């Protein structure tokens, strides 16, 4: 049985993965325009300033949309299907793709409030996922 793929942090993404390992959702924030961005870049996608710094985000958001995957595109997910993939609108104005955990796929509802949780997926790597808020 294959394992799910595990991301390999690189230099520019290290703050995101370091934060996740410590249970914090880290996003880039621009001090020039106060805009947040995702996934990672050197210049702000809102105003193009090169004044991005990593900051802890609230981890709070709502479910924008989702799918339940049935097709196995990677052997690591063979035993995971059917699994959900979700787009989460974070309070910071960033839309992030992740998985919703702690709830059955049938109970997923667009608009539901979610909060980040962190799941260890390998040696020193954790992933932000989302669960229904206020549990």
């Amino acid at each position, binding site marked *: 049985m294959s394992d*799910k*793929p*595990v*991301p*390999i*942090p*690189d230099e*520019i*993404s290290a703050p*995101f993965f370091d934060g996740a390992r410590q249970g914090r959702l880290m996003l880039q924030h621009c001090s020039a325009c106060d805009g947040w*961005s*995702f*996934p*990672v870049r050197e210049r702000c*996608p809102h105003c193009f300033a090169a004044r991005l710094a990593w900051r802890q985000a609230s981890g709070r958001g709502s479910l*924008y*949309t*989702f*799918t*339940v*995957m*049935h*097709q196995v*595109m*990677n052997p690591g*997910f063979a035993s*995971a299907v*059917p*699994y959900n*993939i*979700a*787009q989460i*609108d*974070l309070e910071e*104005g*960033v*839309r*992030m*793709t*992740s*998985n919703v955990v702690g709830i059955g796929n049938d109970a997923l509802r*667009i608009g539901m409030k979610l909060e980040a949780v962190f799941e260890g*997926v390998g040696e020193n790597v954790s*992933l932000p996922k989302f669960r229904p808020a206020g549990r």
Partner: protein
Amino acid sequence: MPNQPKGAIVGLGVTPMGKIYGRRAVDFAAEAIALALDDAGLSKNDVDGLLINANLPGDMDVRTQMVLGFENLTLVNVMSAYGSTAGSMMQYACMAIREGLANVVVLVYADAPLSPTRGAGQSYAGPHRFPLTGMVGLRAAYGNFGANPEYAMAARRHMHLYGTTTEQFGTIAVNQRNWAQLSPWAQMKKPMTLEDHHASRFIAEPLRLLDCCLVSNGAVAVVVTSPQRARDLKQPPVNVLGYAQCAPGDNLRTDRHPAVETGAKRSGEIAFRMAGITRKDIGTCQLYDCYTYTVLVTLEDYGFCPKGEGGPFVADGKLGPGGALPTNTGGGQLSGYYMWGFTPLSEAVVQARGQGGERQVPRNDFVLVSANGGILNYHSTIILSRHASG
């Protein structure tokens, strides 16, 4: 009155499509170009421009011009806006011809991702396409592979906002299969019912197998020249009246909704204005249909119905044979063949010429060609007409 044409399509070449193994993309390209030049009554030496649509595997690159044995081209480029590139290429070709930079320009798309060991599911979204290093590794970690889940999420959002149903998606699939049965080029001719659609397995909910396009090995080439030169060539000229692009951006911000409000709106407005006609003049639509959902949302954004009413709009079968708005009359990418934007473009040429045989639509004065790329991040529109001039 329509405006003066910006260019004319004078040749079309479509190779056999589908599970045709053992041939490279560039060999399909050579066949399609040969067919298109023959169709136009032109020879290889007449060609002075070559625009190559970069394919996903990346083997259709700028060296293609040498592999094909062209020489002294005054216009050559590889273009990429994924599925929408056909429209961008048509813009570029017509502009270059009008500027006098080239006279006979070949546009070509070719791909051969299928092999006996690699089927449709893995062809564009297999592990080889998903690196793990850095933030991009999140996609694989979350199981988010390829276009299927992304378009599924777009369709789900539309269903949530507007009450769109899987029956409405299914009607599009059935209508296009009905068209495919009338096309000699189509890969999927087996009759399909709404029940067949509902019984097909889920790929990514709400999308079922029969909501998803095919994957094809093959190539399409189109020859473009000036409206003046087009007059004394072999085929009835298909005039290019308008073209436009719109790239609405990504969906990584909560204030953006490109998956339910696509670039068809803006690119359509510009193209119709350039053509000097309105939506009501359109007799048939050839729309990019990587998924059934794409057809529905595209019709809304071109204004054929108000935003959110695409579901009820298509539900009466008006897109199928004999319907009020015949659409994707070669079966589209769902049942015909998957050649990115060259699927709708090639069928539009057939219909505008009046060469559709059993599938020929009655009103072919003006044909709308729509193509989108990425996850609805790029869009192009072309308006074609069989009329010689305005």
